[in-house]
């Protein structure tokens, strides 16, 4: 992942426009299709989806075992992986044993999380991303910028250049022509590939099924064209019954892109070829133990919280420390990787609450952000901050002293922050904040004068 550089992102006008317009469009479309007129039972569905996820995660061991029994009953295999290394090692070994040289992959945040492509390539196996956006980024050596619109920061010109460089195609100026170039190049890979790797949007316990939701058709091709299909999924993607999809499918595409349904929804319970489901823990059971934040695992990866976040919409996807960006990334990263990994991440929020409001499974992201802040402060208290607040609290409780200090502060206050705080730690703090010039008279003074 690129080194975060917020200042560069903020200063790049083209990039700012790309982020702003893409997220605005996705957010607007969502708002339209979940409006009261378009979907009168939307709030009921959200609550129901939340309740189903809560029930499932609260009894996760039961449903995982049920899923495993049902997948094995139809001839598939379940591989349990404690972490990314175990998941990658299994897939690499399987590919080697079956003589697989080329693997086609469809978009999966879980495989991004475990750096599967890098592992496969190190083992001499070509893993090709087949979602158009992911393919563009794989060629240019970048990571997804957004959960559902991975290449939203690339212009038509950028894509044309990338294809010219890596596929030796002619320069093109239309998305149609560029899409055709990718379709032709990838069609060859699909026919050549010995294995297809997908993620899973849902794991259905009672049917032993995985569900894939997509618009392009590459997940359908990846899961059915090659002889071997490997699905990689976090253990939290499970739902009890196929019937529960009726609730989740109504919410997922609407929240993501504003479509009533994505183009292809594949329900795969019995597939003719070899099938493996890699069930990944990688920090999830640790998160499960925290009852008040357990709901972080309800996420169905729709991206609505990113599109509606005032912070994501300015800084984009590359300034977050891990693969999951936006508000959901802010609560998943410290919980998966440990709070010490990025202690300040939960503080990078205005707590406006938009993320919680648009979440289709009602994850209380703002509350969880506050709890993570509190965890950080209690695990490694900042003494300067602690004592500052203690002193402040004492002064606030003593009105006479407060009044004296306030008028003294008024007299001493600078009118020009640059000259007064030109040195020391305050300079950095003020470099991104405004220091308002205090008024000539304090409120207390004005009040006294008025009462006379």
């Amino acid at each position, binding site marked *: 992942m690129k080194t975060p550089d917020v200042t560069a992102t903020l200063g790049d006008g083209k990039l700012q426009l*790309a982020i702003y*317009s*893409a997220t605005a469009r996705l957010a607007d479309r969502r708002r339209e299709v979940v409006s009261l007129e378009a979907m009168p039972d939307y709030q009921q*569905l959200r609550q*129901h989806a939340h*309740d189903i996820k809560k*029930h*499932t995660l609260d*009894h*996760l*061991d*039961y449903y*995982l075992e049920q899923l495993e029994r049902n997948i094995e009953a139809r001839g598939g295999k379940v591989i*349990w992986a*404690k972490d990314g290394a*175990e998941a990658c090692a299994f897939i690499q070994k399987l590919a080697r044993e079956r003589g697989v040289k080329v693997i086609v992959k469809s978009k999966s945040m879980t495989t991004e999380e475990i750096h599967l492509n890098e592992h496969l390539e190190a083992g001499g196996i070509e893993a090709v991303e087949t*979602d*158009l*956006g992911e393919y*563009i980024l794989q060629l240019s050596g970048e990571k997804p910028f957004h959960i559902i*619109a*991975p290449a*939203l920061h*690339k*212009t*038509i010109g950028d*894509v044309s250049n990338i294809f010219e460089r890596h596929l030796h195609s002619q320069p093109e100026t239309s*998305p*149609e022509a560029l*899409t055709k170039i*990718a*379709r032709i190049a990838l069609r060859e890979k699909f*026919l050549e590939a010995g294995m297809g790797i997908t993620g899973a949007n849902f794991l259905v316990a009672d*049917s032993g099924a995985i569900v894939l939701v997509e*618009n*392009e*058709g*590459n997940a*359908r091709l990846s899961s*059915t064209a090659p002889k071997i299909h490997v699905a990689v999924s976090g*253990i939290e993607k499970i739902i009890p019954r196929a*019937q529960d*999809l*009726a*609730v989740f*499918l109504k919410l997922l595409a609407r929240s993501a892109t504003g479509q*009533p*349904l994505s*183009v292809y929804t*594949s*329900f*795969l*319970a*019995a597939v003719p070829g070899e099938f493996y489901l890699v*069930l990944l*823990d990688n920090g999830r*059971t*640790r998160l*499960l*133990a925290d009852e008040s934040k357990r709901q972080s695992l309800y996420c169905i990866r729709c991206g609505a919280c990113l599109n509606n976040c005032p912070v994501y919409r300015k800084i984009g996807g590359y300034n977050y420390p891990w693969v999951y960006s936006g508000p959901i990334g802010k609560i998943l990263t410290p919980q998966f990787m440990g709070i010490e990994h990025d202690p300040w991440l939960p503080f990078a929020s205005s707590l406006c609450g938009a993320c919680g409001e648009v979440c289709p499974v009602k994850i209380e992201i703002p509350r969880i952000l506050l709890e993570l802040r509190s965890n950080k402060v209690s695990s490694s208290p900042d003494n300067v901050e602690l004592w500052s607040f203690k002193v402040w609290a004492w002064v606030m409780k003593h009105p006479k002293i407060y009044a004296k200090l306030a008028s003294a502060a008024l007299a001493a206050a600078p009118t020009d922050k640059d000259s007064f705080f030109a040195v020391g730690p305050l300079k950095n703090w003020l470099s991104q904040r405004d220091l308002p010039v205090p008024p000539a008279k304090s409120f207390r003074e004005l009040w006294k004068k008025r009462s006379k």
Partner: protein
Amino acid sequence: MTSRDQILSSARAALNRRAGDSIPPPPPVLLREGPKELLIEQFKKALEALAGKVVVVKTPAEAEVAIDNALNGRTFIRSPHEPTAATEVGITSADYALADTGSLVIFEPTLLSLLPPCHIAVIKESQIVASLDDVFRLRPLPGSMVVITGPSRTADIEMRLVRGVHGPGEIHVIIIEDVTHSDSNTSHHL
């Protein structure tokens, strides 16, 4: 201890559960009741909004004419045969069609509805149901199923809509009328 046992035991420790513990019933299944009338009109409107083409005919013979019109001289393969790389059009049926979203539901789908650049589906009016909820009332569900909602599409380049990425960019649905509308007890086979 295997990874399986470790994951299951850390999950149980986190949830304060023991192996073999029972669970309370999950929240009830929530399926919507949809309309039973005007399904053709709704289906047509929904699929046409996604740039799909819909033709309604009265007899199988008329359906053949409609297929010819849609083919417009292109090479085609009919199910159950598999397409080749050169096949221009795949002709299939569908098990259900969804009125609210303009979707086709195909059980045990093959590459014929996916690889060729154009897909023609021929269905009977009685196969149209109100929404996916009606399909989820079926028990058991088939081993595999795909719900196809319009042509394959992407907006990955500058958010501009392009049809026909890996799947067909063109979809035609030919509906053969077989429901007597004067009868108020319209029977669907669900």
